[in-house]
Structure formats: C-alpha cells, structure tokens
C-alpha cells in the first residue's frame, strides 16, 4: 500500500493521480446520487498502478481497479485519465446495481454505462459544457503516434481511431464472436443515443435518467429493454418534477435514431 485514505501526496505522480481521480468519481456518485462508494456500502476503492510492463490497459477485477503505464509508443498512463478511471469504477457500480452479464447486448450495455458515466464525470472534472466537451473516451491515454484521437467517441462512434469499429445504428450491429460478442463494439449504439439525449436535455437530466435506469436493469437485459426502461424511468422522474417534461419523448426519439423503437403490443 503506497497511499491510503487521507494520506498526503506521495512521490509517485501516478499514485496521486489515481487517488485524486478515484476520489473525484466517488464524490460525484455520493453528491449526485447519494451512493456510498461503489457498492453503496462503503467499499474501499483500491487502485493498482504501474501494472506489468508497458501494459496498454486498465481493468476492473470484481474488487479493485488495475492500470498500466502504457507502452509509451501509442499509449500512456491509464491511471491519470479521469474518463478511464471513471469507466473502470463504474464497472464496479454496475456489478453491484445490475450485474449485467458481460457478453452480447447486456455486455455492451455494461460497457455503455461505463462510457456514459466516464464521459459525464470527465465533463464535470474539466468543468465543460456539453457543447465544449469533445465526447471522446480515452483521448489522454493515446500518444501522437497513435492513429487516432481517442479510444471511442460518444458523439460519432466509429471515428475515434483507424481501428474503431463501433456502429452508431442497429443497421450496423456487430454479430461476430470477438470481444465477448462485441461488448466494446456495439456499445456505440446506446452511446450515440445517450449523446443525442444529452444534446436535447442536458447532461444532468440524462445522468439522473441513466442512473435510475441502471438500478432497474437485470443480468441479461437487451438493448430494447434498455430503451423501454429508460423511457419509463424518464416518465417517472418527469412526473416527480425532477427533470425536463419533454424527457420521455426525447429519450424515445434518441433511441429511435439509432434504430431502437418500441414494439407495439
């Protein structure tokens, strides 16, 4: 253990960055949704940094986060990126709230929620408005030699780099087996719906809708369930007077724009 809660800065900059960014994420969730840590039961937030050698990744293992330093050629320090840290921490939140199965559409939704709160928290951290924000995920972990500007784009899925295969519509849904049936690929579809919703409603109303939606989801949820539950959640929140009254319609239209529409009974 290099630095524990309330300890002062240490010499290792990466340790301090992981500490500060994780703290910012925890404060966002407690201040906005009253969530007491990742599991709402005060779970310690543990970050492992400098993992491996030139390790180009960050992951959540069910209890803790782990970050690589990057190879220094195409990628750099994953622990210092607020959106990466928030993304990994939110895998923990999702595990405790909905435990979305990590394959197919439920897996893509698992990735989606991590990108959603990764981008919300990045905008809060940088004090940006939705029009100032770049809506990119992982822009600070790629170097100049990397063929692209980021890992993913919420605004324009599929355009963040030369390898970015994310679709932004159900017409281009990935049906292959790689990446647990495309969990990091098909998340582009709900990511785009989230971006479109934010542009109409603002990020705070959308954060509230998405967080309350997540609480209602179940392990094997599909994209259509997500769309229906988020519209239903927006209706409930709007009746309580907590959000913009056009929110249910906007959410419905945003999902329709990515090819997800309500099935008429």
């Amino acid at each position, binding site marked *: 253990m290099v630095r524990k809660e309330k300890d002062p800065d240490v010499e290792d900059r990466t340790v301090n960055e992981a500490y500060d960014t994780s703290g910012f994420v925890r404060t966002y969730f407690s201040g906005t949704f009253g969530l007491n840590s990742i599991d709402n039961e005060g779970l310690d937030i543990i970050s492992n940094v400098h993992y*491996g*050698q*030139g390790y*180009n*990744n*960050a*992951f*959540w*293992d*069910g*209890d803790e986060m782990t970050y690589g330093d990057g190879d220094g050629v195409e*990628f750099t320090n*994953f622990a210092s990126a607020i959106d*990466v840290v928030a*993304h*990994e921490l939110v*895998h923990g939140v999702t*595990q405790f709230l909905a435990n979305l199965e*990590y394959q197919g559409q439920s897996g893509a939704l*698992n990735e989606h929620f*991590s990108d959603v709160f990764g981008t919300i928290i990045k905008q809060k951290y940088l004090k940006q408005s939705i029009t100032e924000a770049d809506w990119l995920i*992982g822009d600070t972990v790629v170097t100049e030699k990397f063929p692209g500007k980021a*890992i993913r784009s919420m605004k324009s899925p599929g355009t963040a*780099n030369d*390898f970015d295969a994310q679709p932004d519509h159900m017409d281009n849904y990935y049906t292959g087996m*790689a*990446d*647990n049936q495309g969990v*990091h*690929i098909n998340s582009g579809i709900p990511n785009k719906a989230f971006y479109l919703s934010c542009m109409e409603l603002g990020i705070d109303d959308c954060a509230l809708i998405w967080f309350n939606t997540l609480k209602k989801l179940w392990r094997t949820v599909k994209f259509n369930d997500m769309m229906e539950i988020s519209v239903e959640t927006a209706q409930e929140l709007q009746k309580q007077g907590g959000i913009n009254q056009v929110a249910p319609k906007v959410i419905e239209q945003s999902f329709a724009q990515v090819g997800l529409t309500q099935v008429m009974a």
Partner: protein
Amino acid sequence: MNYKIRIEGGFVGISKEYAGEITMGRKEKDNLKRVLVKKIENTNPKLRDGFVYSIDLWDENFEHRITYDESNLPESVRQWIEKTIAKTD
C-alpha cells in the same frame, strides 16, 4: 522457438499480434513448456476490460496453442510475453 502471440479485448479493444522466432535456453524453454501445458485455472467472471491472450508456440518437437484471460494468465507467462513482445518489431 517460433511464436505467435495475440492480445485482444481490453478497455482499448484493439487487437495486437506479435510473431517471430525467439532463442531460449533449455532451462527457460522447459520451464515455459511446463507452465503452458498445465490445466488453466478458473476464470474470474467479474473481470471487466481484461485482455485475452492467445499463444502459439512451436519448434521441431513441440507444438502448443493456449488461450488465457487476464485472470488466469500465469505470472511467468505474462513476464515471458512482455519480454518477447519487447523484442518483436
């Protein structure tokens, strides 16, 4: 020893493949083979954004293919991968 290492998935989601020939001492080669033929330990179902590592290794009298994930990759194999890909162009 000829090798092909494929690293897929992860937060970044960009596959990387490294292939070539590596010179290994007999002891190092035997140790690696011993680990690679061991039964793979159970995976961690709570793992998110972990890499998947596929390894092909062969020479005139040994041929082996194995796939690990982030949670069951043996530490000695991780170190061998890191050392090997650092030498790959």
